[in-house]
């Protein structure tokens, strides 16, 4: 996508997803896990995950399993980066402080 843009549009769904990852910043979650935890529909969820990844807040990698022995395909796992953790914490801190008039 060319030059990396670290700006992320903060919708309520984005905040909900960030909140889930902030509960345990080292956790790796697939899109299906995020859906199970917050109930955001796939049409909204995947664009947000990609947006956060392209902004450098998330990194993603394939699950390191052998699909033939596990009997299921490998999943794409997302986790917060250190920059993402810092930015997400700042966002929630700013909401807790309130928006200045």
């Amino acid at each position: 996508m060319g030059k990396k843009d670290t700006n992320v549009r903060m919708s309520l769904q984005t905040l909900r997803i960030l909140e889930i990852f902030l509960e345990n910043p080292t956790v790796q979650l697939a899109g299906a896990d995020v859906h199970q935890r917050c109930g955001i529909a796939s049409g909204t969820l995947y664009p947000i995950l990609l947006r956060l990844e392209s902004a450098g807040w998330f990194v993603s990698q394939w699950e390191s399993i052998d699909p033939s022995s596990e009997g299921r395909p490998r999943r794409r796992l997302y986790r917060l980066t250190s920059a993402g953790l810092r930015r997400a914490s700042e966002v929630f801190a700013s909401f807790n402080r309130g928006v200045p008039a």
Partner: protein
Amino acid sequence: MSQRNQQSTQPELDGMTHWLIHHAARRAPESLSSRLEEEWLADLGSRPSPLSRLRLAVGCCWAAMVIVSEYQRSRVPAASPVAAARGYITLADRHFDYLSLRSGTLFLIIGLHAALFCGLITTLSHAHELAAPPNLQNHVLAPVPTT
């Protein structure tokens, strides 16, 4: 009987679900296409029922459209220097395009509702005219003879 029907429609639903995901992934940008297809097909396995899998697939079609529109814009616009400096954009900072995907869909839904409403009104009024009893229709009375 209904259980047998459900068992017979399940492969068809799953086939449609897989087709929708392939279709959605093909619509996505080329660099993301194979990754998204594999990711969505893997996530499909976590859905228990055929209907929820179908919902996921329909959502993936929508997701592909959103991803394509964002990819074409290539970057999320920073609405103000303040927003760019703080590294995120709030809802108030959002830049709304002339007719975004969401607005287009909204207008389409409103248009369909309006067309349906007009169609219903026209049909009902026509049916009402036909159903009007003869005693409610206008008649010209003959003049009454005066003595």
